[in-house]
């Protein structure tokens, strides 16, 4: 009889702890994801920026030596990530593969030009820099034309700025929500013990002595929640890394470790402070005020 009652009590307690742990865990998990996004935001945006191709079209009269030299000098310059020579035959092949029809058959000749595809390093993918690069290439007599998608570059740069700004705003918002949510679950669990706290004071326990077990219990719940969040983050990191290995998510080991430790510490600090404040609140109340 009493054992079933005890079991019921214990289950009730566990479920109330469960909700605290879960809210801490979820909030920290979301924060951690945002953190990972922030850490890798530059990498992701760089990844997209470096997809931008600047194509230098060469005149048919260009000599092999000149092409080689241009390619080499481009490769040596500090703004170029990689270059690739595309002969007009290769270009025709790839257009044929894309369109599924052979335009050379009805044209009778290949209208395409030899070209060099230049992938510019992410930091240099701005309108101004690309302008300078293309002008420089145009000074060569054997260069016919330089083409790149100027609109795309502008769009990308604007979006990257916007997205990073919003990520920061959302992270800030989430931190506030995290603190509020954790704070309110802890406040409720301390509130439910307010008469116990008062009784403890009545028998001569100091505030510090009363507070200690409350803080320790919440911090333990915070740690469990944080560990759950870390496991979630690790799983997400693993799968994203599997899906997009080119992003090299795992490369920033130091920052990732800092982030993981930070999330764990945040779990402890938030629960610590909110339990401290919540218990302090009830410790400072006089008995009569407890009933309001």
């Amino acid at each position, binding site marked *: 009889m009493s054992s079933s009652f005890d079991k019921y009590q214990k289950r009730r307690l566990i479920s109330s702890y469960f909700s605290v742990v879960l809210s801490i865990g979820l909030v920290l998990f979301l924060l951690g994801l945002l953190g990972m996004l922030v850490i890798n935001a530059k990498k992701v945006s760089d990844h997209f920026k470096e997809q931008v191709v600047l194509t230098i079209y060469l005149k048919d009269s260009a000599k092999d030596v000149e092409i080689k030299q241009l390619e080499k000098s481009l490769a040596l310059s500090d703004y170029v990530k990689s270059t690739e020579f595309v002969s007009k035959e290769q270009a025709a092949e790839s257009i044929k593969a894309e369109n599924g029809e052979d335009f050379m058959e009805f044209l009778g000749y290949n209208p395409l030009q030899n070209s060099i595809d230049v992938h510019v390093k992410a930091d240099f993918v701005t309108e101004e820099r690309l302008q300078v690069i293309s002008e420089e290439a145009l000074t060569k007599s054997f260069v016919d034309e330089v083409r790149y998608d100027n609109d795309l570059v502008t769009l990308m740069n604007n979006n990257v700025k916007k997205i990073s700004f919003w990520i920061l705003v959302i992270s800030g918002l989430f931190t506030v929500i995290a603190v509020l949510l954790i704070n309110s679950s802890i406040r409720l669990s301390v509130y439910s013990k307010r008469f116990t706290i*008062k009784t403890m004071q*009545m*028998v*001569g*326990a*100091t505030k510090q*002595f*009363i507070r200690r077990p409350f803080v320790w219990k919440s911090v333990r719940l915070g740690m469990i929640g944080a560990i759950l969040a870390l496991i979630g983050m690790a799983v997400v990191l693993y799968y994203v890394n599997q899906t997009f290995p080119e992003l090299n998510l795992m490369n920033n080991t130091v920052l990732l470790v800092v982030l993981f430790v930070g999330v764990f510490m945040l779990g402890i600090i938030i629960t610590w402070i909110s339990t401290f404040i919540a218990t302090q609140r009830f410790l400072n109340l006089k008995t009569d005020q407890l009933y309001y």
Partner: protein
Amino acid sequence: MQQVLYLKDASIFQGDSLVLSDINVEVNKGDFVYLIGKTGTGKSSFMKTLYGDLPLTKGEGSIVDFDLRTLKEKDIPFLRRKLGVVFQDFKLLTDRTVNENLLFVLKATGWKDKKEMTTRIEEVLNKVGMKTKGFKFPHELSGGEQQRVAIARALLNNPELILADEPTGNLDPQTSVEVMEVLQDINKNGNTILMATHDYALLLKYPSKTLKCDDNQVYEVVQKKN
């Protein structure tokens, strides 16, 4: 005679309203003092002032060597360790057993040795006749039993003064007498007790020095002996 409580020209306020004024009270070591009065006459406020839950803002007062006028927030726990407080509604910690209730008090008041603590708990439970019920939770005990445990708790640190705020208020007459017997025994062993009550039957049965709260005043009444 050693004084454990003394108030001179003290006034007690509940919020802004004056509850009792010009109180002059003395309690000596070994006394058993009743505090009687109708509900709302300020018995509880008087008791609360004594254990530091209400500040004394007017007049002089001293209890177990603490000056009530200059009592600091951080001193209150140490004042309460020299007092034993018994409440009408028992105020046991409902989330733990009787033994753990008592153990909490001992730990909170600086006891360290485990063996000494166990011995002390047995001693006080024995005094109130609850030796065999230490493993029970408060909700598994009757009102009278809970109040005995509360008295045992008050005894733990050999208090210089026990404040009992209507200890029989929630109990039936029969149980009241049982709890009263416990308090009387404790008093005979040398403990000083100040007990607020409105149970006149008990007063008649166990006559002793009596203070009365009425009309914002506290004065001593002399019981007529039949």
